[in-house]
């Protein structure tokens, strides 16, 4: 069955006729060519497909494209534009800059999803502990880094965005 979807992706109005069963992640990748959003597990576990739906991090392999009709989607390609220009670091979102600065990635497969979850956390927090950063990233799996550099990257971004991060001893063990 065909369904019409009117949506905004990274601020751009989009209208498409799609199959009802098309998942949001394939809509983004195959229809719109936004391949920054990855498919890892395809079973709602790994978080590689995380995008924002109306500003909230969701797993796009577990949302129908038809369900974003009249809603707003943000992918990693549009992440930098979610913060004011003054907060960007050489054009990047502070979270992107943090991953660069703190070596938050190795193969990079998990990175777009990690960044979308982390950036949503920071957009909705005033203060955080390292433990809270870890818990927020629970739904994002990384096979390479061992996570510490990712937590450091998010803490780096937090500082740039005026979110205070308490150091707690247990989290870094």
């Amino acid at each position, binding site marked *: *069955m065909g*369904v019409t979807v009117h949506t905004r992706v990274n601020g751009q109005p989009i209208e498409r006729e799609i*199959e*009802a*069963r*098309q*998942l949001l992640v*394939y809509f983004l990748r195959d229809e719109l060519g936004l391949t920054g959003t990855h498919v890892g597990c*395809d*079973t*709602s*576990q790994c*978080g590689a497909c*995380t995008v924002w*739906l109306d500003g*909230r*991090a*969701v*797993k796009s392999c*577990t*949302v*129908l494209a*038809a*369900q974003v*009709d*009249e809603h707003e989607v943000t992918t990693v390609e549009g992440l930098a534009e979610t913060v004011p220009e003054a907060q960007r670091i050489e054009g990047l979102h502070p979270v992107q800059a943090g991953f660069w600065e703190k070596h938050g990635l190795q193969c990079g497969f998990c990175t777009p999803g990690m960044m979308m*979850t982390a950036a*949503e*956390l920071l957009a909705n927090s005033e203060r955080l502990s390292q433990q809270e950063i870890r*818990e*927020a*990233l*629970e*739904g*994002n799996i990384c096979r390479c880094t061992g996570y510490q550099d990712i937590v450091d990257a998010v803490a780096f971004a937090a500082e740039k965005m005026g979110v205070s991060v308490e150091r707690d001893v247990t989290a870094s063990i």
Partner: protein
Amino acid sequence: MIPAAFDYYRAKSIQEAFFAKQQAGADAKWIAGGHSLLPMMKLRLATPPALIDINEIDGLSGIRLQADGLVIGALTHHAEIAHSEEVVRTWPLLAQAAGLIGDRQVRNRGTIGGNLAHADPASDLPAVALALEATLVAEGPSGRREIPASEFFVGPMTTALSDDELLTQVRFPVPSGKVGSFYCKYPHPASGYAVVGVAAVAQLGPDGKFQAVRVGVTGVGMWAYRAETTEKELVGKLPTQENIASAAQHAVDETDVSQDLFASEQYRTHLAALYTVKALQAAVQAIQ
């Protein structure tokens, strides 16, 4: 993985949803957050011929503290419940349980209505709804009815809702007297679902003894239940470690204990008693 083809209807009102359901037939399914249904459809464990999307229906989302209780719309996301000040103030264990579901992204998309209607044997919220004696409000083409949580979960992934009924809201009575509550979960290390989850509500009388005890258990059997023997054994007794531990030995009396690759029947039975003790002790502590 791609679900089998289906027809899709986007309902903008409850009436539209009922109409679409009537057209699409008994096997059509409502879709809310899709976080239980879509994974099953992708694995082709479910192949509904049609989905009726209820997300755009106005008035089915939100949290209100009213005289008759804490009312939560069926489409309210887990994340909103976990962070709601009204919920934290009224029933902290509900916020706690919602905050322990899956992960951040799952909580942003999954809904309380979907969680209860799906009635997964390892879901967290059924245990809480039971312990809080929630009322589930359902609407269907023939009208509205209220179902007590104790009559809602009737079998494995089976509820008292009929095919054409929508769960519209969940109402939790507000606590009165010296009441404490706690939700304790042993999560499956891979899936995050409850291997065992225990929701406990304890009320002490002026004499310091248990006046009321309610224990909702999930993950242990094929559907969530109240550990009534444990509850009855505690009423009228002092909340001592000994009394609680002895009553918790009956935590699985009301169910057939499941077993799977992760937890044997014996291990689950052990965990159920242990988590009943933990949840009850924490509930008592939360009173002071």
